[in-house]
């Protein structure tokens, strides 16, 4: 009897392992998702977003094919999501869209420079005091004005290696209202940094060049310099 129990326990364990493996192997079937085979306006919105951000170079045709799936995987990997190629609620949120109910695109959107600036501020400084958020926006705009940097907001933000939120994909998050207001205030000319071109978090930076720049001011976790 002891042995039977032991066997049974062992059998149950094997069964559990198999079930677990099978669950992992199959894509989770959740409600309101877009996946390979889906089609319609929501798919087109996903494709447009992915294309805009450089994850997808196929046609925006509203048909979720293998290229769209590969692009979704690529986006998910870059944004710290499970790369399953399926647009579920988390991936949709990261894309700045809401699925189902026909309100896709309502919550996200915005392709203008102010929106991009807000995305960068949100990614770089969302835990910072408001003035510190405006300051990050101001640094970006000071770079646009400087001859040594690209001459547009998107040029400065997407300059190679310039912002870690671009490198890790956090730039694609939807900015909150505070970041949007900070972006507008910065666009309007509020520059708490008085013309600074750089900022960094001294606790996280080891780069000798940036640490050698004279510090102009400090707001929250960031120090600003020229």
């Amino acid at each position: 009897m002891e042995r039977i129990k032991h066997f049974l326990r062992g059998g149950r364990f094997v069964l559990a392992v198999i079930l677990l493996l099978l669950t992992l192997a199959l894509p989770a079937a959740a409600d309101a998702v877009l996946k390979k085979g889906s089609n319609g306006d929501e798919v087109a919105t996903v494709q447009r977003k992915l294309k805009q951000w450089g994850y997808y170079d196929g046609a925006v045709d509203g048909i979720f094919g293998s290229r769209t799936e590969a692009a979704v995987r690529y986006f998910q990997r870059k944004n710290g999501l499970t790369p399953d190629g399926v647009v579920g609620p988390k991936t949709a949120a990261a894309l700045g869209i809401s699925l189902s109910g026909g309100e896709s695109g309502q919550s996200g959107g915005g392709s203008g420079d102010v929106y991009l600036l807000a995305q960068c501020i949100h990614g770089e400084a969302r835990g910072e005091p408001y003035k510190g958020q405006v300051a990050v926006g101001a640094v970006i705009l000071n770079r646009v004005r400087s001859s040594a940097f690209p001459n547009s907001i998107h040029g400065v933000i997407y300059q190679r290696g310039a912002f870690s939120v671009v490198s890790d994909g956090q730039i694609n998050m939807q900015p909150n209202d505070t970041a949007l207001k900070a972006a507008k205030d910065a666009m309007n000319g509020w520059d708490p940094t008085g013309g600074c071109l750089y900022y960094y978090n001294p606790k996280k930076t080891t780069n000798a060049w940036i640490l050698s720049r004279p510090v102009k001011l400090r707001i929250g976790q960031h120090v600003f310099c020229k």
Partner: protein
Amino acid sequence: MKRFLTGFVPFLLLAALLATGILYTESQRTAESLQKENEALLQRVQSDTENAARTLSEALNDLQSDLRKLGAAASRGQHVRLLADVWRLSGVAGSALESLPVSHTDGSGLMQFLTRIGDYAYALLQSAEEGTLPTATDAEQLQKIGEQCAALQKAVDGRISNGTLPTDPVTPQTYYTASAEKDAVPAYPTLLYDGPFSESSENAEPVGLPERTVSEAEAKAIASAAGGAEWRFDGICESAIRTYDFSGPNGESLSVTERGGKILYRMEPPSGDKNDPPSDAESREMHAIASAYLESAGYGTMHPSYAQYYAGCVVLNYAAVQDGVVLYSDLVKVYVDREAGRVIGIDARNYWSHHTHRELEPPALTAEDAKNAVSTELTVEAVTLALIPKSNVREVLCYECKGTLNDTFFLIYINAQTGVEEEIFEVINTEEGDLIV
């Protein structure tokens, strides 16, 4: 029971083995496709880099050609055409440079050089259009730029042909890494001109501030007198205009200039979040509040220019006025809280950077002359005198002609001495305000 077990357990084991096998091949496949994807991506990055380097080389080559031709050109028309092409090519070269994976500190000198070539060419282009051809100094500078472009092109071509173009992606960690490969980068000449990106304008003095240094204690007193919050000293902002920065308990902030002790910025969070355009009555009320504030803050009479509305505020832009002439460089932005109906912010950086008494020549043209210089397609509604910035260091006295064409509102600036049409602005009424483009 025992028979069942002896039958079932092997089956379970077999199933487990199968599942493991499937998973293994699946993960192998994923690894393979991932590697393929990575290779394809790397190939794309390399092709993009190669393409950008060739675009840069080509632009540098064409720049030299244009610059040589400029040395040989005599007519105004050729000067205009060639300078416009130099301006265009510097932009092409600049965006090609942006696409190359070079660290910021390695590329910034070159970027600055390219930006200034374009800026300089544009300044010369404007003069050439008005009939003034480049001087001997300019001609010499242009030839020097040509030589620099040749040296740069040689360096870029060398790297293309021996396959030493940078391929490693620039990461936030390497962004500030100055490269040891200084050999490829010659020293760039300082260009003497007055465009917006010239050195003289990037280091402009704040002429509006009185030349008197205030102490931290005085600055604190100035902040307290301004009211609005219990101000706490945060530190000094070591910028071109040094300021004492203060903050309040509810997100308020205020900066007092060390030179002159003036309030450069002041900002408070708004109480509401209205975004819609205000009614005419509300707009008038907001303007009255802002004007009264400016009057009491000692700015005197200011000319309202344009308005924006967002996040519960109306942002009103005011320019200084001297003897009836609107000084557009001397701008103050006033933020009015729409719900509370009071001033919650001011941005006077432009004002204190530029505001000083201007020596203005009386205009040679009359307002009527200016009106006649504007396109007959436009219906001119109002004409006023204005001093407009042509660059950070040059201002031009103009007649500002407000006119409409097909329901679009334009501001056209006619040089008050020469009748030249200096600027055309389009006023765009957006939901967020009347923007001037």
